[in-house]
């Protein structure tokens, strides 16, 4: 069983606002003082893959992580190997900068890389990348590879030649059956990715890392973007005049809060 998980490297999305420095001329966001990390939802996707591996101990399950970008850090991506992925494929090119590629271009590059890897029963992607928040690449990959796609999946069970999935809906979930190979977009309800132990971190350094460039995919000089980024500007945040409600004890503060809200006609 071959599983491929698509993981993007992004600047830590939880950094404070002033870390996301906008370069309006270059149309780039230049993160300051925040480290690159695995995109949050892609960790959910990897966790879903790891659970399949846990559940299919009697089988040979291989998890390959694919990441495309401009400068990818082994140290960051090795976290995926440390938690249990078996191999890392990095697809790097100066032109593959995150902001320079839209989802259409990214999906076509990742589909080309996955084709080159060749063996896949299941491909997993995250719900949206934590930098540009597009939420499209998974479905795009499926389209380019002409395989079925199921999105917002919180649970995966592999059976002979197909998978049973739980797909989150507005008022519950759907049980979906898909033939393999298929692409699955994991939902965050999968749950957080496990932590690697120190030993796993050390072992991860011995796991194979493959590095490909645009030329290896026959993809030099053409990006295929469908969107044109025109302008970047800071988001306006709400500013509150926070009135601190106090009390001798937190409980008293709680009671005072009720009084205050009632006086102001809010409850």
């Amino acid at each position, binding site marked *: 069983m071959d599983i491929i998980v698509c993981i993007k490297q992004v*600047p830590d*999305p*939880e*950094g*404070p606002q002033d870390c*996301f420095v*906008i370069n309006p001329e270059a149309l780039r*966001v230049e993160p300051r003082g925040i480290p690159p990390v695995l995109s949050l939802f892609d960790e959910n996707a990897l966790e879903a893959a790891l659970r399949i591996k846990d559940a299919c101990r009697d089988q040979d399950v291989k998890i390959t992580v694919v990441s495309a970008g401009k400068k990818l850090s082994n140290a960051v991506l090795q976290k995926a190997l440390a938690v249990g992925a078996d191999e890392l494929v990095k697809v790097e090119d100066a032109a593959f900068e995150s902001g320079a590629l839209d*989802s*259409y271009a990214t999906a076509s590059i990742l589909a080309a890389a996955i084709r080159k890897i060749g063996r896949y029963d299941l491909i997993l992607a995250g719900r*949206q990348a*934590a*930098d*540009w*928040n*597009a*939420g*499209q690449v998974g*479905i795009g990959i499926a*389209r*380019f590879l002409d395989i079925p796609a199921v999105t917002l999946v919180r649970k995966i069970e592999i059976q002979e030649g197909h998978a*049973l999935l739980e797909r989150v809906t507005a008022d*519950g*979930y*759907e*049980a*979906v*059956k*898909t033939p393999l190979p298929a692409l699955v977009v994991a939902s*965050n*309800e999968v*749950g*957080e990715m496990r932590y690697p132990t120190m030993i796993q971190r050390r072992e991860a350094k011995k796991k194979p890392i493959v590095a490909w460039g645009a030329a290896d995919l026959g993809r030099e000089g053409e990006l295929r*973007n*469908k*969107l*044109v980024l*025109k302008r*970047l*500007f800071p*988001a306006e*945040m*709400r500013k*509150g005049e*926070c009135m*601190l*409600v106090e009390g001798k*004890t*937190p*409980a008293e*503060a*709680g*009671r005072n*809060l*009720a*009084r205050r*809200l*009632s006086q102001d006609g*809010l*409850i």
Partner: protein
Amino acid sequence: MVSSEGSVLIVTEVDKNQEILPISLECVTAGKRLAEALGGGTVALIMGAGVGEAAKEMTHYGVDEVCLVDHPDLTAYQPELYVAAFLQVCERVNPRAILMGDTLTSIDMAPRVAFALNTGLVTDCVAVEVSDGEVSFVKPVYSSNVMAAYTFASEPYVVTLRSRAEEAAERQETADAGVTPVDVKLDAASVRTEVLQRVVEEDAGPKLTGADIIVSGGRGVGGPEGFEQLKELADLLHAAVGASRPPCDLGWAPPKSQVGQTGEKVAPSLYIAVGISGATQHIAGMQSSKKIVAINKDPKANIFKIADYGVIGRWEEVVPALREAVSEIRK
């Protein structure tokens, strides 16, 4: 007959009771502005089974035409059938732009449609801007810290609109548009992903959207027991219970209670945030609330920067006292 070549196609969604979703009416507002800039008309599309009444209702909102795809195989959303039907409508209408609400359905459908049409897609758009005849689509990126404006290098433009980004179109007594039924050929046997079962999970209490008061919990609430306490407070206030992302991921709160960039966008009169740090992705979903209360033990928590009222303290001590006092007041 559909004649509105080069128009803006507005995908209209209905709820279980065949009521048109507010977001679809917000799409009409954006769609009309977009159509004007592109020099075409607006076509609303309703797809489903037994949605004829909703289609008729849709003629009251100022669109030029309503397309109705009524087919027994479209009872519930199934991506392959819906996309197949949608692409057939596109062949007839030949739209220059396609607008959908940023709903759970369109999260799945919009990328499928865009890739099938070999075109681009802007998701979670918060502003459709027209300047000097050029239309651009603005969306939050980088944890909602940065706004990005896009144009398209391909057509049709496909865009999903965030709820509450536009005013809903108003209902008019007269209905100028006609309903055009569109026949589609669907082959249910060709479907690759089969839905075996649709499970409705019990959902007690008021819904987030439309709630006047929301009591929302974060990672600081510590577990499902904490959420039960929030529920008690919410019941007293006739409020809905919301959550930040971690409680939903960890199963302390149902997925649909998530508020934020990837959850519901809410705007109640009162939003009470308990044990929520105030990450930009959370704020993105609740900053339009009229008043915000923050209860957090960390005085430096970001949530206090956007809150109107704050209590610094452990919720375990603050919330029970708050609940008792509320129940006194409510007596």
